[in-house]
Every structure is written in C-alpha cells, then in structure tokens.
C-alpha cells in the first residue's frame, strides 16, 4: 500500500451522503423500515461487513446532521454560488455547507475572526440565505398539530355534555 496523495480533494458531507446512498442502493442493504418497503431484492455483501457497518453508521449520522435536509443538487449549487461572493476560505465554506448555521453564534464559531472580516449585515445575509433555501418547518408544524388536537378534544367534550343535557 502506498498513499500517493493524502489529500487530493475535499468532500462535503452532502457528497459523501449521496455516494454512500448509492453504495447502499447498489447492494440492496436494508437499514430501516423505510428501506424495506422500497427494496425486496437480494442483499449483496461482497464489500464485507465492515463496509456495511460504516455505511450504515455514517448514513445515520449524516442524515441526522444538518446536511440531511439538503434536498437536491440544485439548491446545494445555489448555496455554493452564493457563498462564493464572500471571501471565505475553502475549509470555512465547507464547514458552512456541512453545518448550515442558523445562528450568529454558530457562524462566528465556524468562521475565524468573523466579526472583523465581515459586517453584521453580511453575516446575517448568509444565515438568511440558508433559512431561505432550507426552511425549518418541522417544529412549527408539530406545535400546531398539537394545539389543533387539543381544541378538537375540547369541542368533542362539549358536544358530549350538550347531548347529555338534552
């Protein structure tokens, strides 16, 4: 074994996620109930147990990490093109697309000396763009559902009482 180029290219988490999903699909591996429905073909494991294990664990991590919300290559490209207008280091850009910061604190932690290199308005632009491309919806929806369910219960309760009165 000889390492020719230890670092020939950088990869973003999203690219790795896509590649590993490809491997999973090619081998018909089943990691969750959702996968089960999609494929009932024969499980292929020529790559070995270690490959299956690392793909499973990495996918689990990547899908729960912020880059799991990136839906398409197009939106990813848009974000990259947008970030190119700022004077960011390659590693910093990578960290932004991997972590998708939605708060100033996090952005400041990712970008060194962010307060000196970028104005507050510029930093806010980055966060706004991320929120625009990948809006956070789940939590808001969950709350609304909860409230509606409670209201529905109350209404039903009243109906029962009304019927009882009659």
């Amino acid at each position, binding site marked *: 074994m000889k390492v020719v180029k230890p670092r020939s290219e950088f990869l973003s*988490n999203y*690219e790795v996620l896509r590649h590993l999903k490809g491997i999973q699909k090619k081998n018909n591996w089943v990691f969750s109930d959702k996968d089960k429905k999609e494929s009932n073909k024969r499980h292929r494991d020529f790559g070995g147990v270690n490959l299956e294990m*690392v793909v499973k664990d990495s996918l689990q*991590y990547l899908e729960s990490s912020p880059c799991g919300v990136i839906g398409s290559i197009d939106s990813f490209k848009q974000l990259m093109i947008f970030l190119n207008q700022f004077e960011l280091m390659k590693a910093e850009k990578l960290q932004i697309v991997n972590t998708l910061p939605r708060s100033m604190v996090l952005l400041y*932690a990712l970008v060194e000396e962010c307060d000196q290199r970028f104005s507050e308005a510029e930093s806010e632009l980055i966060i706004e763009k991320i929120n625009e491309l990948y809006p956070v919806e789940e939590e808001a929806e969950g709350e609304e559902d909860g409230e509606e369910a409670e209201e529905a219960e109350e209404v039903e309760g009243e109906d029962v009482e009304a019927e009882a009165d009659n």
Partner: protein
Amino acid sequence: MYILSEIEDLIRVPPSSFNVPIKLSVTDELHQKYSNRVVGGLGLVVAVWDVLQLDDGLIRPGDGGVFVGTRFRCIVWKPFAGEILGGWVLECLPLGIKVRMGFFDEIFIKKEYLFEGCEYKEAEKAWVWKPDADTELYIDVNEKIRFRVEEEVFNDVKATELKATDGNTQSGNEKPSYVIIGSCQVEGTGCVSWWE
C-alpha cells in the same frame, strides 16, 4: 470533514470473482481491505470513491488468484484542527467527556479544554458549566454537543497490519488506533441546546 485520498495498492482477486467485471471485483476487494479501518497518518477510510487505474493482472506460482496493481481514491474521514463537529455525549468522566458520532466514537474532550468554570459532579456523574454564579448548565449523557477539534492522535496498534475500528476485534486494554481530542471553549460549542 471528509477528504479524498489517492492510494496505490496490489490487490489479490480470488478465482471465485473471475466472472465479475474486474473493476467491480477490485472495488469489492478494496472495500474488504480498507472500509472502516484507520490508515496511520491518514484517517478513517469509509469507502472507495472511484478506481483510477487498473494494471494487468499478475499471477504467482501456486496461487489461483490474480494480483492487480491499482490506483484508487477513497473517502477518508479526517477532521482538521479548528473544525467544529457535532456529536452526542457518551460518558462523563472526572478527566473529561467522551463523545460519540456513531461511525466514530473515540473522541475525548479533556477537562482542561472545557469552558472556564466547569465542574464535575460526582453524584450526578455529569459536568456542569457555571457561566455566572446563578446559572448551572448540565452536560448530560446523550445530549447533543458541539466541539472544536484540537488534535488527532494515531496509535500504532500493529505496524504491519491495519486495524478494524469496531469493538469486536479489540480487547479492552488496547489503545484505539485513532483518537480525536476536542475542546469546548469558544462560543457556540458545548451543548447545542445552550445556544438556541
């Protein structure tokens, strides 16, 4: 963060794989050899990205397999110093905090690298950060935590042999082959819930 590394190696393709296209069988053999293993000085190899070059196969007397020289690129997980990563608290120890990321669990945040005013509570087996006199922020097990990578440590487990990182092949007192030392000292690191 993930990087692509270019590696050259001589791979033995067993006769049972001769019916498979050579690129596919070599990729399978490479996965067998490298996946989920730490290459010293490089990082944790995840999977083969692409095969760049395949030489003509060579045979050896007394061996039915064919040896193929190959140059390939693989995905390597190798965080750099200063990178901010997310994980979950695995264990709180008096010496610091162990963090897991699922595919890689050898991450340690030393107590010297925690925020100023951090205390270990023996009773709760948890670390507590007191940013001011009245607030107590707990770092509990399984909480989501962000940390900054400070350094990476490679331990030569066996110089000639690559070592699998899974627990099955390691006995308890052996040193892990790859350890990440993290810190929680800048704003934005520590428990994710603190900063939201």
